[in-house]
């Protein structure tokens, strides 16, 4: 992909190479993401917690993601991954604890945090009658990038993701699920986020689309200045992409480390064995607490 020259005051383009090494930056610079003792409880049936039946969706999670790192958050359905991502992306307020993005508090500095992050959710959320181009130009405008600047970027990112230029003006509802998800990823990168939150971005994709998305994410890690928090329940994906992996179970972070560290620490042959040893269940089994109101 060609390297673009950024104009003064223009947000950093994804086409630019990373300026710092992974985990780099100034020696005392704050981490890309830091969560301390985050807790979230949801009511069930209108009862206030701690009434019987309430769901402790996140139970004292603390984690740190360094700049330029890909952090994989691994957990079964209902383990609290999406809830945590929603807290990090300012869509959900934690009951307790602190979340900082590049040193900024997600509650006190909400608008500044929003400028630094973007999120791709498991469902590609678009105006489905609008074309990819219309959706992406709109997304660009929301992040202060006008159509003149966004259109060339959109074409470049979509080309990189293997999307035929002839299809960018078709209504999104006519595109396959895989293509929609790629466009969701393109939308996230259009705003050149410093921290990208990928919430199960490859769930439901066919093998080929999954591989293309994974390659794109890995290339961004290798070539560009993006920190990525990736939630997944795909063990292979976590091993492939993540520098470090956190295992979430019952709303708690039960283990954290590089894939090899985790297997070595637990004397396991694979990440799947580690997961079984820590949680007592297979990753495809849903967490019995469910996602409550999350």
């Amino acid at each position, binding site marked *: 992909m060609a390297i673009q020259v950024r104009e003064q005051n223009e947000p950093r383009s994804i086409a630019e190479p990373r300026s710092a090494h992974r985990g780099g930056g100034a020696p005392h610079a704050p981490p890309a993401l830091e969560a301390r003792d985050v807790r979230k409880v*949801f*009511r069930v049936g209108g009862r206030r917690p701690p009434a019987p039946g309430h769901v402790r969706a996140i139970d004292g999670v603390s984690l740190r993601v360094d700049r330029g790192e890909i952090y994989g958050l691994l957990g079964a359905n209902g383990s609290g991954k999406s*809830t945590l991502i*929603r807290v990090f*992306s*300012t*869509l*959900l*307020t934690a009951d307790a604890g602190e979340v900082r993005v590049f040193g900024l508090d997600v509650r006190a500095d909400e*608008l500044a945090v*929003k*400028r630094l*992050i*973007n*999120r791709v*959710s498991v*469902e590609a*959320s*678009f*105006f*489905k*009658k*609008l074309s990819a181009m*219309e959706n992406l*130009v*709109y*997304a660009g*405008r*929301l*992040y*202060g990038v*006008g159509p003149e600047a966004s259109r060339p970027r959109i074409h470049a990112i979509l080309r990189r993701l293997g999307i035929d230029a002839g299809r960018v003006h078709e*209504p999104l509802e006519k595109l396959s699920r895989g293509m929609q998800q790629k466009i969701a990823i393109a939308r996230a990168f259009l705003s050149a986020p410093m921290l990208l939150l990928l919430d199960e971005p490859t769930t439901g994709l066919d093998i080929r689309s999954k591989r293309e998305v994974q390659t794109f994410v890995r290339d961004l890690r290798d070539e560009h200045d993006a920190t990525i928090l990736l939630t997944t329940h795909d063990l292979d994906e976590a091993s492939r992409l993540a520098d470090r992996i956190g295992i979430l179970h019952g709303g708690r972070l039960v283990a954290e480390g590089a894939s090899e560290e985790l297997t070595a620490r637990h004397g396991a042959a694979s990440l799947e064995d580690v997961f079984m040893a820590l949680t007592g269940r297979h990753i495809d089994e849903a967490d019995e607490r469910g996602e*409550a*109101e*999350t």
Partner: protein
Amino acid sequence: MIASVGGQLGLAYAFVEREIALSKRYWAWELVWLVYGIVTSLSVAYIGLAAPAIAGASVDEAAISRFVLYLLVGTITWRFLGLIFEQMGETIAWERWEGTIEYTFMAPVPRLTHLLGMCGATLVRALAFSVAILAAVALFVPVDLSNANVASALVLLATGAVAFIGLAIGSAVFPLLWTEKGLQMAYIVQAVVLLVSGVYYPTSVLPEWMQLLSVISPATYVIRGMRAALLDGADVGGVWPDLWPALLVGAVSIPLGLRLFVWAERYAKRTGRLKRSG
């Protein structure tokens, strides 16, 4: 400062552009609503033309013409104000159904700018619909505007739009908090406003308790003032008794609506309601 205002206007324009693009893609539905608006307004006008036949008495032509215009001013002004009201609420509900609500609320757009953009988009649509309906109705029914004071009518309409924006922002809180019930609640509020605002009749015919409600509806003043301007040629000074209460309602309802919306957003974030449906 100017750059900052320009930047915020650019952000607000994103919502206007998005709504225009959506209107183009849903053109068939827009056509349906337009035809529905024209037919409804025409039906009301024909009730006016049929007044002598319905009442079983002879009425002179000037009185019939005034009655028809009286009804048309009410129905078209209400169409304009009602569109502002319902589109604000529907936009939030629409974003839930489309699944884009999280993305919109996660974007680095101040809520005031977001709502300003939504109001701008709503005004463009409401104005386009109202002008089209008026033009279409004028083709079928003789509309006597020879005595009209268009300038004061436009001032009233602009004031009414501002006043209704506050109410509309307030009503958008319902679908923000409740996925489906919220929109139903907003429709109920809109229906009550229609009933008490004298859209088709003077509010003096309402029971006393309903007349109390009509006092707080900005539509009451806007529609009454519009009639004074378009039927009797009242100038801005002449419609002032209806203009200042509408301005007052706007001055109170806009900050109140914004405050309510911001509170509702915080509540939605605390309770996990800021999410797509389906």
